[in-house]
Each structure stands twice: as structure tokens, then as C-alpha cells.
């Protein structure tokens, strides 16, 4: 049992989600009309980034960063139709919260341009030698005069090949506690010394852009530091408490989309055997539990009091549910062409923004500490 549960807050957020039913319908209508089968198929095959979808989603009012509940609904409903395009439409702002919470005025002006569609943002944390071990990163930013010189590389960076700016985490000093001495920067990808190599051959979410980044004596000014020097690790951990809820919403959307495929197949083929009915019940129950975990974790986030254990519970459970639902959909629909995309898309939910193993460690540590 997680202590400190604020029931009032929990119910008010559920009510808030209910009150956004019209908005939910608007998002779904957008997805159903824009995410045509041909388009989904094309981007899944070519692995190109659908920039027109990004701009259309923005223009249609589906990216309202002032209302986090709306963002979660957009992510969930678009991923319910197709996670490749759904994530591609909602991820160009990735890392923006770090600037929103800790950035200076100049950086916030750039963020406004990101939210208006002028720029695309990315977050550079994971490195080739370590994904889960954030504090073990090897990219360095050495201060020389009033500049920092950055060297190193980043791996599996979403938007890495299309971003105009990257929120980067790098080591600025060696400290006994390796969580210290890390600093966040806002990097312009046009800067000399920046290189992005697009990665091909993902199992799923192939409309999203993923790249390896290299920094070779890339210079930034001290004004490009986000927040305080040496506090970067904590900023990124705070960000993960937000982004993991986004992933839970992605996973929830994929699970619901897989269930849509199951229900469509069961109805069209007049399947009535109890074995299948029990499976339908089971996956529906898990999806409902995922929804409640996700909205519950979001309820704390919305009042600026994120609970890491609840966030990780939502992310790990919704991720597992997406995988379970998509595997079941494959089993019931017999390898259906459209269903298999849900299967391929689902697996990343257990990997990015912290593998399920990392999430489980966070949950157990928080619980053992006596709450959240």
C-alpha cells in the first residue's frame, strides 16, 4: 500500500478525464480520419518521420501543453489507432518539461517555438554503454572560459535525426557521488561538432525517428546550461516522473487498440466459445487496471507532487498489459496484418524511459523507504 494517497485528488482527476470526453472524441476522430491504413503502412515500411502528421495534430489543437490531461488523452487515443504515427505526432516536444521547469527566459522562448511547431525537440540522456545507468554516462562538458566543450555520444535518441534542439545531459565534474556533477544543456543541432545518425530496423514504432548522436568538441555558452550546474541528474529524474506517465498512456492506447482488433474479429466471426470470452474478460480487466494506475499516477503529477512508485507502477503495468493484449490479439486474429503492428509496437513500452526491471527497482525502493 502506498502511503499518503490523496483520494480527493484521485477522484477529481478521474472526473477531469470524464469531463474531457468530447475532447477524447475529437482526438479519436482526428486519428481515424488522418491515420489511414495506407499512411500507417507507408511510414511503417519506410521508417520515415511523418512531419505533416505532426503539424496537422498541432493545428487541430491536439497538443495543448497547458493541459496535461489533454496531452495524455491525445497520446492514448492516437496510439490506440497506431502507435507509430501516434507517438510521432506527440513526441516532438519530448524533453520540454525540463526547460519549462528549470530553463531560463531565452530557453523558454525556444520552447514556445517548439510548442508552436517551428522547432522539434529531443532529449539526449541514454548512451551506447548504458541505458538504465543514467549517472554512469560518459559524455563530458568541460568549462573553458565562458563556454562548455561537449564530447561524447548518445544512443536511441527519439527525434535525434530531426530535432532542432536537444536537451542534453552531460558530466561537468567528477564527484564522489556520481549523481552529482551532471548538468543539462540546450543544444542547437546546427552547431558545429553535432552529428546525428539515424538508426534503422526497429521492431516497431517505425514512424518515429531514432538516432545515435555524436558530439565532437561542440561548444555551447554558459547561457545554454538549463538550471543549475551539477543538478542535471535530478532534473532528468523529475522529467522521468512525467515522461513515464506519457509512456503509460502510450501503452494504454496500444492495449486498447489491440482489444479493438480482438472485439472486431470476435464479432465479425461470430466467435462465442467461453475460452475466448475469458480471454476477452481478462485483457479488458487488465486494461481497466492500467487506466486507473495511469490516471492515479497522473493525478499526483498534475498537482506538482509526482509519486515515483505510483508512476513506475503505472508504466510497468500498462507496458506489460500492452504486450499481453497485443500477443492475445495476434493469437485470436491469427496473425492479422493490422494486428501484428500492435504486437511489434507494444514491446518498446517495456524498454524505453526505464526498462521494467528499473521500474520494479524504483517501486521496491520507494515502498521499502516507507511510502513514496
Amino acid at each position, binding site marked *: 500500500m502506498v502511503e499518503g494517497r490523496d483520494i480527493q485528488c484521485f477522484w477529481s482527476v478521474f472526473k477531469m478525464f470524464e469531463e474531457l470526453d468530447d475532447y477524447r472524441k475529437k482526438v479519436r476522430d482526428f486519428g481515424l480520419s488522418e491515420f489511414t491504413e495506407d499512411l500507417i503502412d507507408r511510414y511503417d515500411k519506410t521508417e520515415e518521420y511523418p512531419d505533416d502528421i505532426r503539424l496537422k495534430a498541432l493545428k487541430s489543437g491536439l497538443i495543448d501543453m497547458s493541459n496535461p490531461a489533454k496531452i495524455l488523452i491525445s497520446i492514448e487515443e492516437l496510439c490506440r489507432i497506431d502507435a507509430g504515427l501516434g507517438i510521432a505526432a506527440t513526441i516532438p516536444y519530448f524533453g520540454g518539461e525540463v526547460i519549462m521547469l528549470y530553463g531560463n527566459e531565452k530557453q523558454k522562448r525556444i520552447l514556445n517555438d517548439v510548442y508552436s511547431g517551428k522547432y522539434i525537440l529531443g532529449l539526449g540522456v541514454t548512451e551506447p554503454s548504458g541505458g538504465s545507468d543514467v549517472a554512469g554516462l560518459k559524455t563530458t562538458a568541460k568549462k573553458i572560459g565562458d563556454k562548455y566543450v561537449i564530447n561524447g555520444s548518445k544512443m536511441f535518441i527519439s527525434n535525434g535525426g530531426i530535432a532542432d534542439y536537444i536537451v542534453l545531459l552531460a558530466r561537468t565534474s567528477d564527484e564522489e557521488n556520481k549523481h552529482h556533477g551532471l548538468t543539462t544543456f540546450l543544444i542547437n543541432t546546427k552547431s558545429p561538432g553535432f552529428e546525428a545518425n539515424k538508426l534503422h530496423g526497429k521492431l516497431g514504432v517505425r514512424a518515429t525517428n531514432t538516432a545515435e548522436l555524436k558530439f565532437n568538441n561542440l561548444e555551447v555558452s554558459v547561457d545554454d546550461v538549463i538550471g543549475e550546474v551539477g543538478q542535471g541528474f535530478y532534473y532528468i529524474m523529475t522529467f522521468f516522473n512525467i515522461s513515464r506517465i506519457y509512456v503509460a498512456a502510450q501503452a494504454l492506447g496500444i492495449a486498447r487498440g489491440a482489444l479493438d482488433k480482438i472485439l472486431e474479429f470476435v464479432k465479425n466471426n461470430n466467435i462465442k466459445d467461453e475460452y475466448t470470452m475469458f480471454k476477452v474478460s481478462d485483457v479488458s480487466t487488465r486494461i481497466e487496471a492500467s487506466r486507473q494506475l495511469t490516471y492515479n499516477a497522473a493525478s499526483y503529477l498534475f498537482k506538482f507532487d509526482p509519486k515515483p512508485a505510483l508512476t513506475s507502477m503505472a508504466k510497468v503495468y500498462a507496458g506489460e498489459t500492452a504486450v499481453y493484449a497485443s500477443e492475445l490479439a495476434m493469437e485470436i486474429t491469427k496473425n492479422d496484418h493490422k494486428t501484428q503492428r500492435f504486437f511489434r509496437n507494444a514491446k518498446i513500452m517495456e524498454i524505453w524511459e526505464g*526498462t521494467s526491471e528499473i521500474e520494479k527497482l524504483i517501486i521496491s525502493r520507494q515502498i521499502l523507504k516507507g511510502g513514496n
Partner: protein
Amino acid sequence: MEDEYKLLRENVEEFGSTLDEKKIEENGIDNNLLKKLASQGFLAALIPENLGGSGLDESSYNIILEVLSKYSPSSAFEIFLINSIAYPVLSDDLNYLNDVIKGDDFIGISLDKTIKNNSLDSVLNANGKYTIMSSDVPAIAENENFTEKDFMGFKGIRFGNVGIKNQKNIKSNKNIKNSIMNSYRSLAAINLGIISGSLQKALEYSAVRQAFDVHLKDFGPIAFNLSKMVARENILRNIIYSNVNSEYVFDFSIENALEISKYSLNVHGGYGYFKDFGVEKFYRDAMALKAVFYGNDFLENLSKRVYGERSGFI
């Protein structure tokens, strides 16, 4: 006999290790590879020697499927389609298989009974000259053309919609459905190869990859999970080559293949999600095998085996 099996296993291992599954998945099984599989005697493994085949027993055949599947599930599945599906249906008229077992042609296997506008919607080996139809009465048709479709697993096998002509019934006491029912042990062997291939990758990776300055293998959850999976891999190998009935063996193999290939992908983190590491294919193949061969038809067979009469149909 044990020595012969051991020698066969070593030979298939040697051959399998030369296969480039990534290339096979990208370009499909080409004539060159098909010829190689034929020259090894794999394509006609179960066909008697006096009919031009290799005349192997079931255990030898399953060793070939298991070991090849570890390296190239697509190649193992191709061998399975010919020996376990096509050959039983066409055993009284092997003319259709002459070019196939020589590695000069493919034989289509239809997964769907429906014929619409003279075409079959879901055909494995859609690039063959003939397709065996999925009808209750065994039948075959000439392929006129095919349109490629996406099949999630076994990407080396061409899959698609096939236009057909000159459909005719075949004199045979087996159709595709009951050929599959007689092949559960061989499907389990393919699953075992998928398990071995994915586990090997995870064990190797966890021994060299570090997180938090520690090798992954030193973390309890990873070491214990992988070790338990190795135990299950060994149990599956033992029961495949035993007298345990084939429905039980297949059932045990199916969940393990999916779970273990999925976990192996997870151990690789982000790298596992990319083709280059050769792990995600095992997860796709395990799922494709389950989606095609493991449904209520199989479960009713399993229940019939347990109850001795039809059951579980409500």
C-alpha cells in the same frame, strides 16, 4: 543411434552457423540457399530414400529443425513446410515435389480455405509454382501470380495473395489440417531452436554488458530468470526426443518460446529492439508460430488427448 544423432547435430550446427539470417530475412530464401538446403538432404528429410529423399527418422528430422531454427528459423520453417505439410498431402503424387526437393522451386501452402476471385489470400511460399489448398478435400492449384503481404514472422518465407488456376483434387488421405495435427513435435522442435537461439544471445550479452558497473548476469533477477529458462530449454529438449505425447510437448514449447524470446529481447534493452542484434526475430517468429498453429483447434486436440473424447468446445 545416439552417436548418429550426435554427429547429425554437429553437422547441422556447422551448416547452421554459416547462415546469415538477417540477409535471409531481408531478401527471402533465395535459390542459392534452397539449393544448399537440398544438397544437405534437408528438403527431403522425411521422404524415403527409394523415392529420392533422405529417409531420415523423426528424431533426426527434429534435430535438423531444432538446430537450424537456432540460426535461421526461416530455413527450418521452409524445411517443415515441405516435409511436414506438403509431403504428407502429396505422398501419392510426388511429381509436384520433384523440383521442390531438388531446391529448384517452392511449394505454396495456403493458410486460408477461402477462395475469392480465383485467388488465395494467405499463402506461405507464395512464390512457388503450385499451392496446396487448405480445403478439407486435398487439392492443389497452379499459381498464376502473387502479391506480397506482410507476414510478421519467418520473414525468409515469401507470403502473400496468390492467383490460381487449374485447381484439382489430389488422391490423398491427408489434408493440411491433419498434416499439422501430426506435426506438433516438429513444431515444438522449431520452438526449441527459437528458445536456444534467443537464450544463447541473452546469456552471451548478459555476461559482457554492464549496468551500474556490474555485469548483467550478476543481477539476481536476470541470472535467476535466464537460468530457469535454460532449465526449461533442457526439459523441452528431453521431452521432444522422448515418448511424451506430441500435444503435451507442443503446448509446453509454445508458451516457453514466446516468453523466453521476449525476455531475451528485454535483456538486450534498446539494442534488442533493433534487427541488427538478431534477437527480435525470435520473438516475432515465436508469436507467428503460435498465431498460426496454436488455437482452439489445437486445444481441442489437447483436451481430447486428456479426456479421451471431444471436450472444451463450448
